[in-house]
């Protein structure tokens, strides 16, 4: 079983099911990418795994431990970190305050972790006393990821981290995400830029109508003619 796994998940809003028997997982130190057309339920799957949406069926395990009954905050304590797609920074707080708030549930010394985040995102160190709302889109995403890293998560979930940033910034963010995975963190992310994201993925999931239709390594999915034709534009 994978380190993080959402197994046979069925979930939705009201009576409608958006996720139909969807299984997504990732190993420690690896990157798993969820791609698929709009409305396939990618973000919903992330919300379900993080506990922001109740499962009707299925289970979620982190390191073999069942997460089903835990609230999102409690999952943070169990080593899960989540970067939402939008509104993912405190815009009126400084960069440093954002990181401090990310570590709010910790009672020990956070300076080492903050140092590591600043080492990873050097631009944030320069701008640490600046208000997060005044930063560029790419820098804000770095604050958002940095905030989630402050709890030293074992699993980091990212919902479209490159939404709305330039291709150059996107490459830079992907590089940082690889660096984070190299420290042993399991990374699960949803991406619109399917081709580039699958390029860095150890595992890829192509979601269609609430189900992972194709599951394979990133490279194989990129090489798979059916996937190329239907989802990657040829």
């Amino acid at each position, binding site marked *: 079983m994978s380190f993080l796994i959402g197994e046979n998940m069925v979930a939705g809003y009201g009576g409608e099911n958006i996720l139909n028997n969807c299984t997504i997982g990732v190993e420690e130190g690896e990157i798993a990418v969820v791609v698929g057309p709009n409305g396939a339920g990618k973000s919903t799957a992330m919300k379900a795994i993080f506990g922001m949406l109740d499962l009707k069926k299925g289970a979620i395990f982190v390191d073999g431990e069942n997460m089903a009954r835990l609230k999102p*905050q409690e999952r943070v304590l169990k080593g899960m970190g989540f970067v939402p797609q939008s509104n993912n920074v*405190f*815009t009126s707080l400084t960069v440093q305050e954002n990181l401090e708030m990310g570590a709010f549930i910790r009672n020990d010394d956070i300076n080492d972790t903050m140092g590591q985040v600043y080492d990873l995102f050097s631009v944030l160190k320069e701008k640490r006393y600046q208000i997060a709302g005044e930063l560029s889109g790419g820098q804000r995403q770095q604050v958002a990821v940095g905030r989630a890293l402050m709890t030293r998560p074992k699993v980091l979930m990212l919902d479209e981290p490159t939404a709305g940033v330039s291709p150059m910034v996107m490459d830079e963010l992907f590089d940082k995400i690889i660096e984070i995975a190299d420290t042993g963190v399991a990374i699960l992310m949803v991406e619109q830029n399917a081709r580039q994201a699958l390029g860095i993925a150890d595992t890829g999931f192509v979601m269609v109508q609430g189900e992972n239709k194709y599951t394979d390594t990133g490279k194989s999915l990129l090489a798979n003619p059916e996937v190329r034709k239907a989802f990657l534009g040829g």
Partner: protein
Amino acid sequence: MIDYLNALTILANYIIIPGLAYGSQLALGALGVTMIYAVLRFSNFAHGELMSFGAMSTILCTWALQSMGITLTLIPTAILAIPIGAGITVLYCLFVNHVVYEYYREKKIDTNTYFIVSIGVLFFTAGLIRLIIGPKDQNFSDGNRFILKAREFKEMTGLNEGLAIKTTQGITVLVTIILVTFVFWFLNKTRTGKSMRAYSDNEDLALLSGINPKKVVLITWVFTGVLATVAGTLYGLDKIYKPFTFMYLVLPVFASAILGGVGNPIGAIVGGYIIAFSELIFTFAYKKVFSYLLPESIAPQTLVQLLSTDYKIAVSFLILVLVLLIKPTGIFSGKEA
């Protein structure tokens, strides 16, 4: 030259000093309103009555202290009673939060309903105050009335016009500086203060970060209770304590908060002083000032008063309407009012 100094003295005596004191009282009131708005996201129309409740609690404590023979000779005994009065008011706030607001917060009710609920609390609190202390005026100021008397000022400077500074005015400004400094230090430097700002900024992300909304709300009510008590007591000391004036006082307090940008603490302070000075500037009779500045032949015969003092409240209402029409986010771009 002497004429200019005399004119300036009149302005200082009737506008600058009272404006600083009244502005401080409004600023403290508006700071409470703005904190509730920032954290609980509704306009707390019961805030005027909370100020009244705080002043009442302080008055009762003052009387108790006086009957025990404890008085401060130089400054009003009420200053000594404020901490106890504030404690009682905080308990009342927490009680109301627990039995009323918490219920609606957990139901995630919309802000309009919340605001109507606060009007219910307004009437309940107003009734409670009248039951406890009655509807009549209460004068509870004791100690030295003046820091500087008009006659002393005239003797000191040899000017025709006098400048008086009431003890309550001096205390108002001093207490405001201390309290506001503390509030800003708390919000910007402490972990709890930062978590309050974070919660106000982005509730969902605050929850994801493990910030406990109940704790944030409780601390906000503690600040609100203390700020309301100090504002209400200082207002009562400076003028006189009349339970029903607080119903009207809520208007300039809201005008201050919205003018500065509701949800923004700095805005609340600046807004308080602007509203206070506007009210005084628009309703002051300038005849005497002009009689010093202009030659006798063209000196005005009328009062040179833009508005009668009865329309004081209309000034803040007008500013409120203009802000909402022109820049609803206020000077410091708070949340949309």
